[in-house]
C-alpha cells in the first residue's frame, strides 16, 4: 500500500524556491493501479521520487508498504520496484550480473538469486542474451533486463515513472502488459504518464496533477461524470482549467533532475 499525506517538495532556486509538489495526498491499495497524469513539469517525477526515497519531502509524509519514507528509506526501497525512463543499466555488466547485483543489494542469497533469475529469464524470454554485455543490447532487451531488475526482490510496491517514454509501440506494449501483470499479482502500482490513452487503458484510479497540485482524482467513470466529458484529454483539459493554462505549463521552470536519461519531461 502507498499513502501520501500532504506531500510537498520545494527546490532552492536562484530567485527563491520552486514548489515542485504541493500538499499532495492520495492512497493506493494492493492490486490497484494508480495513474498520475500530468503535463511536463507538473511534479509527477518529484512525487514518485519522494515515494521511492530518492528525494526527501520538504513537508508532509508518506508510507510505502507500511514504512515511512523519511525514517526508514532503506526498508521502503526494499519493498519497491522502481522503473523510469531514466533508470539506465550498467553497460559493462552482463544481463545476469546486473540482475544478480540488485538481488544481492536486496539481501538475497546466491541460491535465491539463481532461482529467481532462472524464472525471470524464462518469463521475459531472455535466454539468448542474458549472458552478454548490456552495452550491446537493443532497447527492447534492455527493457526486459530492467523489468527483471525491478522484480528480482519480489517487491510489494511498483513505481513507474513514465516507463514508456521514448519507446516504440511494441516496446511500450510490453511495459503496459507488464504493469497489468503486476496488478494481477496483487502488487500496489503507481504509474505516471502524460499519455492519455495509457491512463484510460490501465488505471483503476487517476490523479490529475498540475503545477505540483493534485487537482482531481477518481476512477475513469467518476472523472467522466464530474467533468461531463468522455474523452480523457477533454477531462484533463477541463481539470487543469483550460487550454491557455496548459500551454503556460510548458514554460514552467524545471526543478533539478538527473541529467541523463534523455528525458526532457519533468513530470
Amino acid at each position, binding site marked *: 500500500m502507498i499513502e501520501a499525506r500532504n506531500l510537498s517538495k520545494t*527546490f532552492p532556486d536562484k530567485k527563491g524556491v520552486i514548489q515542485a509538489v504541493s500538499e499532495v495526498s492520495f492512497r493506493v491499495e494492493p492490486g490497484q493501479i494508480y495513474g498520475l497524469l500530468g503535463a511536463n513539469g507538473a511534479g509527477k517525477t518529484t512525487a514518485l521520487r519522494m515515494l521511492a526515497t530518492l528525494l526527501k519531502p520538504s513537508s508532509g509524509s508518506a508510507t510505502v508498504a507500511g514504512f515511512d519514507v523519511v525514517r526508514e528509506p532503506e526498508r521502503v526501497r526494499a519493498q519497491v520496484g522502481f522503473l523510469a525512463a531514466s*533508470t539506465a543499466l550498467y553497460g559493462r555488466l552482463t544481463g545476469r550480473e546486473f540482475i544478480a547485483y540488485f538481488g544481492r543489494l536486496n539481501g538475497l542469497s546466491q541460491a535465491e538469486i539463481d532461482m529467481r533469475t532462472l524464472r525471470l529469464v524464462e518469463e521475459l524470454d531472455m535466454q539468448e542474451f542474458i549472458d552478454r554485455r548490456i552495452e550491446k543490447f537493443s532497447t527492447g532487451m534492455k527493457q526486459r533486463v530492467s523489468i527483471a531488475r525491478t522484480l528480482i526482490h519480489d517487491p510489494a510496491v511498483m513505481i513507474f515513472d513514465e516507463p514508456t517514454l521514448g519507446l516504440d509501440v511494441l516496446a511500450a506494449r510490453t511495459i503496459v502488459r507488464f504493469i497489468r501483470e503486476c496488478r494481477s499479482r496483487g502488487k500496489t502500482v503507481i504509474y505516471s504518464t502524460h499519455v492519455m490513452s495509457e491512463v484510460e487503458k490501465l488505471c483503476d484510479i487517476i490523479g490529475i496533477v498540475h503545477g505540483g497540485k493534485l487537482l482531481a482524482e477518481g476512477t475513469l467513470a467518476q472523472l467522466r461524470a464530474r467533468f461531463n466529458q468522455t474523452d480523457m484529454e477533454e477531462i484533463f483539459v477541463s481539470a487543469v482549467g483550460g487550454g491557455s493554462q496548459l500551454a503556460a505549463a510548458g514554460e514552467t521552470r524545471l526543478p533539478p533532475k538527473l*541529467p541523463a536519461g534523455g528525458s526532457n519531461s519533468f513530470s
Partner: protein
Amino acid sequence: MNWNQVWTVYGKELRDSLRDRRTLISTIVFPAVIMPALMFGFGFMSFKVVKSAQAEIPSVMILGHEKADTLRQAFEKSSRLKMVPPSDDYAQQISDKKLRAAVEIPDGFEAALEKGALSKVKIYTYSGEMKSGFAADEVDRVLRDYRETLVKDKLTARGLPGTFIRPFDIERQNVAPPEKVGGNVIGGVIPYLLIFLSFVGAMYPAIDLTAGEKERGTMETILCSPVGRMELVLGKFFTVLTASLFTVAISVISLGLSAFGVALTFANKTAEAAKAGAKVVGEVMPTISPLGVAGVLVMIIPLAILFAAIVFTTALFAKSHKEAQTYVSPFMLVIILPAVAAMLPGVELNAKLALIPILNVSLVSKEMVSGSFPLGLMALIFVSSCLYAAGALVAAVKMFNRESVLFRA
C-alpha cells in the same frame, strides 16, 4: 553499517572498472610504462652525455703564450687538451662551443716568476656547460702541476724538503651509505612520481564511478535499490582506493624491474667507462634504499585515501566526465607544487612541515629513500595524513547525501 552491501558494491565496481579500457590504461599501462621509460631514458641520456663529454678532447687557446714558453710546453704535453692558435674572438668562440676554454697568461709572466712576484693566470670558461667545465678542470690541473714543479724546484735550490710548503695532506672520505648519495640525486623524484601516480590512478575510476554514473543514467537505478548511501559511498570509495594503490604497486614493481634492467645494462659498460677514467654509473644510476621505498609505500596509503576521497567528492559534483575532468585537473597542479617544494635544496623536514599534506609525505620520502628514518616525524606524518584522509572521506559521504548534488540539473 551493512558491510555485505559495501562489499557487494565494491565487487561490482571493481569488475565494472576492470572491464573499462580507460581505467585499465590509467591504472596499469601508464605506470608500468612510465617507470622504465624514465629510468632507461634518463639513465642512458646522462650516461651518453657524460661519456661523450669525456671522450672529446677539448680545444683550448693560450693567450700570450709567447711570454711563457715553459708553460706552453706543459700544456702541449697534456694528451687531454688540444691547443689551438690564439685569436682575439676567443670569448665568442667559447660561446659558440668551438672552443672549450682559454687561458690568459699576463705580460711579464716568466719575469715575475723569476723575481718571485705574484701574477695571475686567467681561465675563460662557459659556466654551467659540462664540456667547458671538463676543459677548465684539465687546464687547472696542468697549471697546478706546473706551479708545484716550480715550488719544488725553488725548495730544492734552497735545500728544503717538499713538506716545507706542504706540511700535511688533506683527504676527504665519504661515510654516507651509497644510497644516501644516490637518494639525494634521484630520491626526490621517485617518491614524487609515486605520489603523483597514486593520484592519477584514483582519478579516472573516481570520475567514472560518480560523474560517469550520472552521465550514463545509472545513478538513479542504484539509488532506488535498498543499498544505504553510506554503504554505496564506501563501496565506491574502496574501489577508487584500490585502483590508486594498485597503480602505486605496479609502479614500484615496474621501478624495481627497470632499476634491475638498468643495472644489468650498465654493468657491461662500466669497464669501458672505468677505462675512460669515469665513475659515471655511480653518479647517474644511484642505488636507492629498498627499505626506504617500502617506507614510502606505507606513507602513501593515507595520502592515497586523501586523494581518492578528494577526487571522489569533486567528481561527484559534476554531471559528466568532461565536467568532472575540468574540476579534477587543477588538483594535479596542487599536488605538483608541494612535491616540487620538497625537491628544493634546503627544504628540510620539521614538525611544522610534517603537518602540511602532500609536502610532508614528499619530504619524508626523500629522507627514507636516502636511508634515514626520522621515526617521530614519520608517525606524526602518518597520523596527520590519516586525519586529513578521514576528513575528506566524511566530506565525500556528506556530498553523497545531498539531493542537490545527486540530482543536479
